[in-house]
């Protein structure tokens, strides 16, 4: 059954950028390495984006996936994140983004970091994932 919040576009909430709340960032590391790398969604400016801005809108939709997952992780206890639809979308996003990286191995781990101004806090660590199985 389609969850009720999937219909939220029909019930407008006119609060935009009202609070400097935490935003969520996605970082990954290769298995065996200690270095975490952020996944970037920045976009270059281009002409006519007032009319067609598909890359930017897609990037914003991608960031929404991270936020949805982070919200679900924070609102639930004692659950299997792997069963969440947002987890499947997030891991697919990660896999798609990592095609741009030359990774020494297909085993990666990701984390979700809540950031506000200069403060950062990790709210979720994934298990080690095999990109080929995602």
């Amino acid at each position: 059954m389609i969850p009720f919040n999937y219909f939220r576009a029909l019930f407008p909430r006119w609060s935009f950028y009202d609070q400097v709340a935490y935003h969520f960032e996605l970082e990954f590391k290769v298995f065996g390495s200690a270095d975490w790398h952020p996944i970037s969604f920045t976009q270059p400016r281009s002409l006519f984006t007032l009319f067609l801005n598909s890359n930017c809108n897609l990037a914003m939709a991608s960031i929404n996936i991270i936020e949805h997952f982070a919200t679900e992780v924070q609102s639930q206890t004692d659950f299997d994140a792997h069963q969440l639809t947002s987890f499947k979308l997030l891991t697919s996003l990660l896999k798609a983004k990592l095609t741009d990286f030359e990774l020494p191995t297909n085993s990666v781990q990701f984390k979700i970091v809540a950031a506000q101004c200069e403060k950062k806090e990790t709210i979720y660590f994934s298990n080690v994932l095999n990109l080929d199985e995602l």
Partner: protein
Amino acid sequence: MTLEASLNLTTQLLSLALAMQGLEYFLLSQNSYLMRVWSFKNLKKELQSSFLFSDLSFKIISLLLFAASVLLFFKFQLWIVLLMFFLNLLICLRFRGTFNGGSDMMIFVLLIGLLVSNWSQQAGLLYICIHTMFSYFKAGLSKMKSNDWLNGLAISQFAKRSLYIDSHKFGDWLNQNPAVAKILSISTIAFEVGIILLLFFPKFVGLYFLLALFFHISVFRIFGLNRFFWAWLCAWPSVFYCLGSFL
């Protein structure tokens, strides 16, 4: 603005906005990244219908939205507006609520307003007008309750989260010029909350509209939110009509 002119302008602007969105969706349907992430395989737990939510259906929906928008531009027909409502709903469901947040919500307000206008043109435009004016007012009211907005911190922080690197630099510049940041913050709040004054001084609607254009262009420039610009532009004919007719 007359009733007929307002309704025609709303319809044609909305058809342009949705034609652009339909084209965007179609371009995105060719994007392997999108089709891998928002694949039916990932979504089928909640969206069981492969007929409505398969990868092919997304392409078809985007083309139908574009075609319906073109038809609507030339003639208002109830079935076209209903179709566009349904197509937009399918897209929002696919993206688990909204694709682009507030602009999707305003598009539905506009579509519902046009649907209502089929039975009562004034009621349809009034519906859109009320939502539009409330959207500015509520947004400003929410900001008034935030210390980060009142002290000027919010704009710089949001700019630094933009997808555009030069917006990050603008955010850094605002951090170094807190007086400017504060002026911009207070001005934004005043602009949004100030729409309520149009109820008492409707003759200034043209001036407020120009400020709104500047506001939405600025938001687009900083954050890349092109859809917001078009969605709110579509709503303004109803504001012009209603403030001119009922006040």
